């Protein structure tokens, strides 16, 4: 019942490949701002992977983990961005 598991596997692999590609920007970004954008991209794609794995395993309570990450994922990014803004503003 539901979606074909093969399609879900393909979607998980594609999202994993995209997040590996966007991790290249984290590995080789010249400035911290580039790495921050890479972190933001990876958070969004891993969130998609979490939801699709919950659909694949057919457990609705596993969606809590994705909800926690969706709510709290941007607090760290906000802290880093605030520090960068303070650093530039102080110069």
């Amino acid at each position, binding site marked *: 019942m539901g979606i074909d598991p093969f399609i879900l596997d393909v979607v998980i692999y594609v999202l*994993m490949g995209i997040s590996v590609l966007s991790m290249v920007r984290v590995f080789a970004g010249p400035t911290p701002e580039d790495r921050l954008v890479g972190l933001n991209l990876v958070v969004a794609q891993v969130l998609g992977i979490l939801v699709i794995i919950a659909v694949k395993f057919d457990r609705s*309570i596993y969606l809590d983990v994705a909800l*926690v990450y969706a709510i709290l994922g941007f607090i760290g990014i906000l802290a880093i961005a*605030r520090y960068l803004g303070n650093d530039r503003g102080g110069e």
Partner: protein
Amino acid sequence: MIIPQIIIILLIILGILSLQFKDLLNAVISLAIFSLLSSLLFYYLHAPDVSIAEAAVGAGVATVIFIAVIGKTRRKEE
């Protein structure tokens, strides 16, 4: 399935990278992705309790504490 192997290799790369950075801000960003991927690994291995704890601590609290400590000390490592 090959997803856990990919995640473990990425975890090793991120750990070595966060040791090698001279700018500590980059190390903090790399550790944030490290905790995100380890949370995904726990989730994949059917341990949602540990995954929630790792996601909440790694995404919110640990990054804020690291950034506050960097703000109180120096940013570059010599």
